[in-house]
């Protein structure tokens, strides 16, 4: 079969990093081709290079056997390449039709848009690929899956023959993933070539015809799904034995550090997001919370740290009721917090590192004395964090945005750990950081656990959950639906509980 896309020796450098290092890729016409790799392996950069949002420093790209060189995505679109971004490129207050035709509007004289013609064309495209949507709906009224469909229609509307999907399943719930895969197979049947990024290996194995693995910017292997297992793929991605966090002996003590009973959180639209949740975390214990994203884990954490109010229930910290306490009071009483989105909730990006180290602890020694900030103390402490947690930085006065993701995360973990919290709330503590930093973070949590810290761990990384936790609970639609023993549970079992495939009780 002919090649739809061929990349030869594609190299893209950023200051200090080689994001793509002589990548080779061959995508056959009419196949579904997956690109997988760890975070930071260079997948997103490669996608942007394919779509000419970025210009490669070296290498060539062939489309349908012809070498191409485009100045912008517009030209790539013209050559039949379309991209569905991970973060949808849609305007919420515009209609589906307006979003789809944007940039390719059929017009009468005077630039008047021919809406009838546009609607006909949209319907024709949508129907021929079995994608159903009302062109007059406002995008803001659509579900996530429907929005993705609009993005795909947008690309097809322009006559794309090659579709690039950037982590299309990341935002979808399982049923929507099935729907998407059905659509992808239909598209393939109609002759489209699909290239998609994913790092959920079971999904890749289920849908792809060919898989290319990226590791540290290089293309390390191209395989067929029937020749490999998920384990093989994972090892290709990481490059060696998989580092899995493994806790050895139990360090769980008797004293309860954090107790949550009957906690219920209700959102602005009066929906119950966290529904009557109860659990205890003892000193030296890691309680893992598993669940598909959007099932109330984030809100649970917010209610425990105090940024969103509990509608009902009690939060007890080291024996004291803190349900109505301010965030500051809770932090002073020993709650540490590693937020899931470090840019949004963890850092003051333009502020120097030492101020970032003070954030959340600014009322405590050594960051302040009474109403005064202690700049000397804060700097000293930041130096300590830098040394002990291996934060790679020229000095503690550079702003946080200058650091790489992994170093930013090490700074956050360091500032929380140095405060020796009695309870740590860790939400996806290793998301989006490199393997080395990941191992370091795991090691830090284990060390603190040995020292008696209680940890509430939310993670989408099931190996991380199983490896670090002493107990795992599964959240589904705001409720705790299962309590499991990490020593006996497998990721597959966990996945079944998380999606509601297995409903009953305990392990």
């Amino acid at each position: 079969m002919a090649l739809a896309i061929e990349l030869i020796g594609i190299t893209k450098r950023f200051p200090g990093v080689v994001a793509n290092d002589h990548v080779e890729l061959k995508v056959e016409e009419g196949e579904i081709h997956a690109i997988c790799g760890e975070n930071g392996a260079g997948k997103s950069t490669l996608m942007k290079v394919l779509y000419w949002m970025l210009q490669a420093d070296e290498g060539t790209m062939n489309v349908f056997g012809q070498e191409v060189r485009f100045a912008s995505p517009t030209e790539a679109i013209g050559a039949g390449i379309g991209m569905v971004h991970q973060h949808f490129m849609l305007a919420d207050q515009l209609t589906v039709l307006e979003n789809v035709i944007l940039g390719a509007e059929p017009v009468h004289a005077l630039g008047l848009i021919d809406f009838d013609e546009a609607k006909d064309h949209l319907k024709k495209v949508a129907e021929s690929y079995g994608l159903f949507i009302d062109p007059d709906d406002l995008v803001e009224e659509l579900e996530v899956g429907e929005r993705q469909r609009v993005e795909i229609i947008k690309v097809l509307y322009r006559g794309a023959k090659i579709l690039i999907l950037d982590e299309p399943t990341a935002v979808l719930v399982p049923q929507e993933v099935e729907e998407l895969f059905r659509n992808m197979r239909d598209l393939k049947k109609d002759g489209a070539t699909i290239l998609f990024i994913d790092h959920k290996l079971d999904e890749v194995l289920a849908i792809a015809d060919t898989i290319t693995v990226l590791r540290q910017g290089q293309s390390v292997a191209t395989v067929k799904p029937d020749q490999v297992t998920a384990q093989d793929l994972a090892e290709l991605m990481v490059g060696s034995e998989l580092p899995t966090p493994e806790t050895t002996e139990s360090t769980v003590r008797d004293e309860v550090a954090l107790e949550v009973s009957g906690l219920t959180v209700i959102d602005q639209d009066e929906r119950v997001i966290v529904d009557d949740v109860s659990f205890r975390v003892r000193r030296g214990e890691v309680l893992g919370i598993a669940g598909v994203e959007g099932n109330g884990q984030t809100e649970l954490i917010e209610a425990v740290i105090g940024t969103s109010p509990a509608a009902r229930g009690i939060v007890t910290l080291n024996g004291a009721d803190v349900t109505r306490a301010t965030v500051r009071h809770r932090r002073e009483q020993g709650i540490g917090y590693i937020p899931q989105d470090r840019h949004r909730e963890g850092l003051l990006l333009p502020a120097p590192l030492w101020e970032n180290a003070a954030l959340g602890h600014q009322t405590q020694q050594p960051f302040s004395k009474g109403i005064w900030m202690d700049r000397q103390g804060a700097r000293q402490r930041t130096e300590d964090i830098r040394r002990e947690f291996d934060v790679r930085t020229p000095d503690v006065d550079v702003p946080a945005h200058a650091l790489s993701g992994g170093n930013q995360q090490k700074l956050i973990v360091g500032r929380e750990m140095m405060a020796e919290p009695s309870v740590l709330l860790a939400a996806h503590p290793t998301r989006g950081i490199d393997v080395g930093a990941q191992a370091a973070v795991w090691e830090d949590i284990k060390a603190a656990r040995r020292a008696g810290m209680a940890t509430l761990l939310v993670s989408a990384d099931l190996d991380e959950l199983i490896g670090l936790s002493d107990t795992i609970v599964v959240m589904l639609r705001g409720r705790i639906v299962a309590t499991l023993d990490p020593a006996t549970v497998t990721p597959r079992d966990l996945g079944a509980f998380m999606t509601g495939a297995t409903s009953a009780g305990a392990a």
Partner: protein
Amino acid sequence: MKAIPLWKRASLLLAAPVAALIFSILMSSIVLVLSGSSPLRAYADMFEHASRLETMIDILNRATPLYIAGVAAAIGFRMNLFNIGVEGQYLLAAIVAAHLGAMVTLTPVLHVTFIMLVAMVVGAAYSGFAGLLKVTRGVNEVISTIMLNAIAISGLVAYLVRLWQAGGAIDPGSAQQVGTTPIPESGLLPDLNVVVEGLFRELRQGKELTGVLLVAILVGVGYHVLVNRTRFGFDLRASGINPFAANVGGVPPKRMVVAAMALSGAIAGLVGLSEIMHIGFFPANPIKGLGFTGIAVALLGRNHPLGIVFAALIFAFLDVSSGVLQFTGAASREIVVIMQGVIILAAVVAYEIARRAREKEEARAAAEAMVAV
């Protein structure tokens, strides 16, 4: 391993305002040449005049309220709030303070303190209201302060001026000015001529260095200490940079918004002091525009306590120079207003360019650090 040397940091910091100044001098020169005046002669006249002690006093007197207004705006900026309402806040605060100040009899120190407190409370309340609207009703503070400005200036102040107007001409020294009842001597800050004359020589032309200068200095020092040295200042800046991160760090964002707006308004309340303390009452036709110029001064001074000093002095120098140009006829005096406008536009553009250059530099340095270690 020092990745960004000090000289480089300093030059990045200073390059922008210097470039802005040069650019605006260039622009003004072009305008002057086009209008048939000699830029060199105009600038020579301006500097020659500014080197006189009396003119320096004028510049300081003018810079004083501009500095206070600049700090008021800067407090908002540090919290990512645009207090466009400094103008309305200071006028409203000044008239209420002048009126109440004239109503009471107190000992000197207490009296001055009372007037200042009234001004601060009125400013804080009016500005805090905008903060309250933001956090409780989701009203953007830019829009609400613009509306509140209009309500204060063409509504409340215009009304109160007439309501509280004292009969007839008041101050025999300043030709038939009308306004609120004069504040007794005990409520006025003394001038600082003693200090000036002790240091230099006797002041001629009846010039007085305003005592409010001391208030401005206190405001500046207080601002620096509060923002850079206290926990409250840390919370304020953290909230301004990233309200979400500040929130999980224990800083309640809504309370900080109201506090910052109120604080900004309290300082704005002091802007009018230099007028009511100088002439002793709130005049029917007060100096306007100090609030808006204050915003410009804060921007030019990068919200930095010392930066605002320089910015206020530059603006005051230009203001005072306009009189000089009028007098010598070297050029149209209005050129200075254009210079002020161009400086501020050029400065914000230059700061933006410098910010991008700095970020690139920092990212490069941090990337090198990663590889090097």
